[in-house]
């Protein structure tokens, strides 16, 4: 039974990892990377490492997402500021 759960979680984890690289929207990619951490924490639990599973669940799945989102919204703010000030640097910003 635990072998079945392990294999299914692993396949989902790999497809989530590939999706995190190929989804166009960056925030969606961040969410997909969070799902990879969720599945990894279940795998850590199956192989008998509950401490690691707890850390991965708390840090990988929640706090990393939050840190990514803070940085991304700082970039969005900088982009908006650039637009409002109408600076001449017409390079493409961000994604």
């Amino acid at each position, binding site marked *: 039974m635990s072998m079945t759960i392990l294999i299914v979680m692993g396949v989902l984890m790999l497809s989530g990892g590939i999706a995190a690289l190929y989804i166009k929207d960056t925030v969606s990619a961040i969410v997909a990377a969070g799902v990879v951490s969720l599945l990894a924490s279940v795998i850590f639990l199956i192989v008998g490492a509950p401490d690691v599973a707890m*850390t991965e669940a708390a840090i990988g799945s929640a706090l990393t997402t939050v840190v990514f989102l803070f940085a991304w919204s700082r970039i969005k703010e900088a982009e908006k500021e650039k637009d409002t000030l109408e600076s001449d640097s017409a390079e493409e910003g961000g994604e």
Partner: protein
Amino acid sequence: MNITQIVLILGFLLSLIGFWGLLTRRDLFRMIISFSLLDTGVHMIMIGIGYIKGGTAPIFDEALAVGEAVGKVVDPVPSALVLTAIVIGLAVTALMLSYAVRVYTSRKSLSIDAVKELKW
């Protein structure tokens, strides 16, 4: 197929996905996401090495008495190493993200091609 083998293969494949993203993406944010995937893969390899056949968590309670632990519990040393590595991974990710934000404010672009000074 056994559990060690599956976990090791999963870790290797996830590391390869992370490497692939790190080498092919040009966007700094995608590179950081790939780095965190690579991180998770390496952690999984380290945990997989410490697994023992039929092993359970190395924590003593009603279900696991002190005297009969040998041969039943997994290796506690990789768990301890990965535990600290995950926390360091978060701090390093935050540091990389602040570099990315600084690059954006000075170059107005998130592409790695915008940073030309160190290119040769």
